[in-house]
């Protein structure tokens, strides 16, 4: 992994489906019907189901694991804000680049965007190098 400031991380691109959201609900133990029940979700202001924030965050972590391996899994820090919902049918791209690299730590600006280039999640990921 090149740690020069500005270096881009290899993006992770995922086609989001209701099936993936349902599987996450089971594995993560989050049964909020806003994520899994289209009929319920249609009556909310979202107008349909949305993905769990933590599922979208998992795609950022996949990108960081690919770039930094064990250092990420045993000493990483991911600090994000959820900006907009991700919906079934969306193409979610996790992207990032190195913004600082000093004192044995690298800080990356990370984001997930959808196919309309709307920011779904944004924040920072920090890892030992």
């Amino acid at each position: 992994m090149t740690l020069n400031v500005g270096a881009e991380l290899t993006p992770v691109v995922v086609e989001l489906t209701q099936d993936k959201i349902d599987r996450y609900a089971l594995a993560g133990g989050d049964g909020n019907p806003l994520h899994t029940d289209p009929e319920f979700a249609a009556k909310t202001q979202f107008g349909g189901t949305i993905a769990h924030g933590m599922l979208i965050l998992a795609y950022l972590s996949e990108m960081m694991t690919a770039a930094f391996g064990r250092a990420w899994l045993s000493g990483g820090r991911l600090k994000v804000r959820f900006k907009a919902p991700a919906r079934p049918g969306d193409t979610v791209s996790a992207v990032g680049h190195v913004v600082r690299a000093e004192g044995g730590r690298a800080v990356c600006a990370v984001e997930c965007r959808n196919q309309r280039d709307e920011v779904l999640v944004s924040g920072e990921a920090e890892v030992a190098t």
Partner: protein
Amino acid sequence: MAQPKASVITDKMRAEIGVESEPVTFEVDNTACRMFARAVGYTDPIYFDEQYAKSKGYRGIPAPVGFLGHVVYNPNEPQRLGGYVRTDTPFKRLLNGGTDIEYFESVCAGDVLTATSKLIDLSEREGRLGPMLVTVTESTYRNQDGKLVARARGTGIQY
């Protein structure tokens, strides 16, 4: 001038800030790590093949980031809700507003974690969704050796 709206934050709620919860036990096992990894679409063999994970320097199958095991369920004990779900507000809906998760050690299948949580901040905002209560909760996870392995701060939005 408009009258300020009455606050939904009570003195009782404020008094909870900084108070540590009772510890909760989380078990991390092969099946749950694999299930989580499958659910989020990971294909890296470290999450599926224990021998391979060991060959890469892990003690066992690592828990994917964001997965810190499952609470041990006991039907004879009251169910423990997540730290940021409050039932003493007029708001019925909840969203995840943000996450700040920090790892200090790897978490692997076979680990038994003990977590305590505390409320660290309460605030009110008027947003696109109308009036909102924003709660920040911090959970601290230690493993079976008493080592601090992760700290997670979650921002919950109730509206």
